[in-house]
């Protein structure tokens, strides 16, 4: 498996860039490589480095996304990406070094962790229920998006990254939100009323076309039924957004 020619690997990497299924498959195939690179970078052994492996997998995925043919062989490139990510992670962790772990043992007492004697800040049950509810909602949302032929991964890839583009899309969304009739029409027809939105918001049609998937997703979220998601998107509608609170 690891002896696959560079050519095949690169072909797979390019397939993985295009489709998230292919990316997941590629990562599964190279799990051994990822694990060994994570171990090499962290100096830890199996069992005690869950986080590191998660980060290594993520770094591998990132390498897949960012890889270009001109950058040399893929696997060394990915190995470097993994090492860098893990080093970054350790650096970040170091900043929190002075914070005691919740799992630290309390001095003088055996087998009693700090976590055990702290009062529960949240009601575990309640938190679990909220999570269940939002999960249900998200799955529903996902299904509705799938009807448009869109997955969350697509939306993430399609999300505007530049501030100006993001602001332009925001204008479209703000306009649409104030126009319930338009939203209903959109859900029923399944088509984005580009012309109307463009006229109403003053955003260029090209930008809307380019970020169609993203706009569809957010507009869907504004339709009925997605209370939790809408609640999460509290920043939208609070006037000008885009900056972190």
């Amino acid at each position: 498996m690891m002896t696959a020619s560079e050519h095949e690997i690169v072909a797979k990497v390019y397939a993985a860039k295009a489709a998230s299924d292919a990316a997941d498959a590629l990562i599964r195939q190279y799990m051994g490589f990822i694990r060994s690179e994570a171990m090499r970078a962290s100096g830890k052994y199996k069992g005690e480095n869950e986080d590191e492996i998660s980060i290594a997998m993520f770094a591998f995925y990132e390498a897949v996304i960012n890889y270009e043919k001109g950058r040399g062989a893929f696997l060394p490139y990915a190995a470097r990406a993994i090492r860098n990510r893990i080093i970054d992670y350790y650096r970040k962790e170091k900043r929190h070094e002075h914070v005691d772990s919740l799992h630290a043992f309390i001095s003088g007492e055996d087998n009693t962790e700090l976590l055990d004697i702290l009062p529960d800040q949240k009601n575990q049950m309640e938190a679990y229920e909220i999570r269940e509810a939002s999960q249900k909602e998200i799955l529903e949302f996902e299904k509705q998006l799938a009807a448009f032929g869109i997955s969350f991964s697509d939306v993430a890839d399609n999300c505007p990254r530049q501030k100006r583009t993001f602001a332009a899309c925001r204008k479209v969304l703000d306009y649409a939100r104030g126009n319930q009739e338009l939203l209903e029409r959109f859900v029923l027809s399944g088509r984005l009323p580009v012309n109307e939105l463009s006229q109403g918001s003053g955003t260029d049609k090209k930008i809307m076309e380019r970020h169609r998937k993203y706009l569809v997703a957010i507009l869907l979220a504004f339709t009925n039924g997605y209370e939790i998601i809408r609640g999460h998107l509290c920043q939208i509608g609070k006037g000008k957004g885009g900056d972190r609170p």
Partner: protein
Amino acid sequence: MKYLIMETHPAYAVLLDENGRFLKAANLNYHVGETVQDIIELKSLDKQARRPLIRQVMAMAAAAACFCLVFFGYYQPNYMAYGTIFIRINPEVEMTVSRTERVLELDGRNADGDQLISGYDYSGKSREIVTRDLIQRAMEMGYLSNGDSVSISIDSSDAEWKQNEEEGVRTQMEEEYGTQVVIYIGKEVQEDQTNVEEPIQIVIPVVPESPGNAASEASEAQTPSESQTPLETDKADGGDSGYDDEHGDSGYGGEDGDSDDRGEDPDDEENDPDDEDSDSDDEENDSDDEDSDSDDDSDED
């Protein structure tokens, strides 16, 4: 900032932030529906779009620099015509050379010249070698024999280079043929050198094919038809050869002893020709070389 987990994959998760951005981040054991705060966000190289352009420009610049280096450092000095050397024995040959004295082109300027260079491969050879080879060939083919003259003129827009070349040709010719032929590095324009601006004329006098000399110098060259073709020279030469026969032998007999004279002769001639060739020749009628010399010159004129 809080993030809502929308979708999880083995290697990453899709999150929704409070501003309505969807993004990908490391999946640190997340579950759909969870809300998290610290994330490791995907860094996609958007600056890529800019970098290749810079890189392309750099690559172009590097390629151009390499090209310039090769062109000015190697190609130009070696493969670009820098000057022409015109050799006139009887056959007339024009050599186009690069600055590094590499012969780029070889042209016969008359029928004999064409014959002289036909079948000769000059590619990659230096001016020095080609000149030597051509004179050797001329001797073998009977165009050139002892006492004859060779005139060489050099033309180039670079005066300094031209002077150096002249000097180089002169020393080379003197070293190799100083005792056998008379060399003129011509400064006067010869009649048929139309496109050469400031030619230098070297006349190397050669004793025409007198039976005695020819036998020693050139073995096969004796075909009379060949020797008759070059201009009217041959008629006069024919006369000379008779003359040479008588004295020539004796002259050559004493060659070893007379080496001093021979050493002097060419010098005299080189100094003189600028003024008048015939004069010098007349004065030194004693030696065979001189006689033939005068003949050649008169023929040329």
